[in-house]
């Protein structure tokens, strides 16, 4: 029985260590290495045949040069700031779109709720790539939206949405909307309807009851939803590269290009390490929020 328990723990443990932890250490190591025109395209490489001296030489070869480079070239910090800005704005917009939907779902009759739930989840099961792609035909310069608006005589020249940050916002709102709706809905669904009635009974208007009772009580769901949108949006690659065009700077895209186009592995690794350091803050805050919500739920 004990060796079974050992196996049960050891197998997934070893798997995750090998395919998650070790790769990350490699990224860290390469981030501290120098670019070289070689295979692999970085130096130093650890040469164990050199014995202790080889290991020493290896560690002496590591430095923070790539990180210094990141601060010197404005492309990188602009991309980090751009990612933060786009993630933050699109999180707020997603909240504004998602909250009324979640609220209406929670108000709907019991027999409707499972169907509404399924309708929210269904897009999540369809390909992310296709969902992003579906907007190209709509917002492109010669796309449906512009054709319609011009046909109605509202505008004369096509709106430039494609290849601007606006297109990225639309893409993020569209693809991450379920992540915002579901936690808010589950917070609102738990809400006891008699609380609102009690607030109204005590002299609140419906709007005041919403403001003073419903909204504060749905806060854990709102916070969870915001993090669930913000965190993946920060490292997003597909949306900016399909909808954002060349002028939209997001760090996920920069990392991709650094690696695939420039083949600069050390700089790509350094970009990844810094991105992770930035992500640690919202992730820790999110964890705290979840723990608090869990405790409140007990």
């Amino acid at each position: 029985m004990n060796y079974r328990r050992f196996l049960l723990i050891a197998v997934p443990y070893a798997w995750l260590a090998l395919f998650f932890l070790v790769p990350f250490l490699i990224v860290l190591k390469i981030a501290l290495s120098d670019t070289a025109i070689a295979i692999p395209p970085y130096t130093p490489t650890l040469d164990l045949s050199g014995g202790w001296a080889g290991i020493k030489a290896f560690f002496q070869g590591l430095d923070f040069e790539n990180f210094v480079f990141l601060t010197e070239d404005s492309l990188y910090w602009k991309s980090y700031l751009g990612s933060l800005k786009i993630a933050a704005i699109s999180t707020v917009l997603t909240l504004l779109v998602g909250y009324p939907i979640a609220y209406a779902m929670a108000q709907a009759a019991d027999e409707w709720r499972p169907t509404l739930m399924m309708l929210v989840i269904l897009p999540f099961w369809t390909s992310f790539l296709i969902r992003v792609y579906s907007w190209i035909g709509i917002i492109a310069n010669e796309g449906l939206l512009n054709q319609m608006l011009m046909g109605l005589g509202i505008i004369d020249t096509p709106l430039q949405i494609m290849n601007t940050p606006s297109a990225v916002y639309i893409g993020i709102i569209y693809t991450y909307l379920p992540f915002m709706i579901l936690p808010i809905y589950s917070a609102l669904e738990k809400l006891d309807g008699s609380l609102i009635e009690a607030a109204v009974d005590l002299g609140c208007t419906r709007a005041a009851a919403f403001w003073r009772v419903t909204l504060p009580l749905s806060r854990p769901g709102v916070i969870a939803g915001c993090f669930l949108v913000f965190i993946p949006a920060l490292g997003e690659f597909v949306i900016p590269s399909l909808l954002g065009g060349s002028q939209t700077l997001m760090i996920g895209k920069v990392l991709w290009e650094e690696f695939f186009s420039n083949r600069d592995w050390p700089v790509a690794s350094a970009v990844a390490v810094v991105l992770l350091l930035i992500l640690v803050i919202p992730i820790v805050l999110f964890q705290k929020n979840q723990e608090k919500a869990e405790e409140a739920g007990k």
Partner: protein
Amino acid sequence: MNRKLSWFNVTSLTLGFAFLYLPMLILIIYSFNASKLVTVWAGFSTKWYGELLRDQQFLDAAWVTLRVGVMSSTFATILGTAAAYVMVRAGKFRGRTLFSGMIYAPLVMPEVITGLSLLLLFISLGLDRGIVTIVLAHTTFTMCYVSVVVSSRLMTFDQSLEEAALDLGASAWDSFRLVTLPIIFPAVISGWLLAFTLSLDDLVIASFTSGPSSTTLPIKIFSAVRLGVSPEINALSTIMIAIVAVGVITASLVSKRAIQRQRAEEQVGNRT
């Protein structure tokens, strides 16, 4: 709550679902457009479907994707279920904090970083990139999703059922095989489906870990879409949306009864 929805709620639901579904609906409609120019309607036609089915590159990519999906989600389900069991039931052991960190971290890790780090690992291991490396990569990131799904089921699982099995003379393995597994099986299945979908859907990690001979469907779609809208991709998207829609709707109809039964069963398990 059986009251009528206010106009405000009806409006938000209508607009919300229109927003969610209209783009896909448009995509589907235009997949039947006869014109190569995607924005001009030139009559109904299914010719793009025909061209898609004759495109050997797409078919190859679809076949690679399917194989990767089945293999990686199966491995991920086994590993993820084991990990969930460890998280919920194994109690304290050395390195538990690191273990739970490694389970949850991939969920929030940007795909570009996961992809990059796995690629660098495969290179330093000297593994040739191909289907094997994609399967390894997909297994790793999807097993964490499986373990989240399964562990949330295990947490509501009445532990006295396992104790009862032990009390009646079952070994630990028997009590898992005969009692725990059959009861959590729906969660294991949904874990598998989730892993499968994520694997089918993944572009970024697959781009890093695939080799020239192992292009997956998302990679193929991405390179086609970068050049703009194409009717063939519209047709492919329609097929994929249809498969998912049919799958999800049937699954939910079929499982509706199963869920009701399971709820009734759970009320037995948990004290009334």
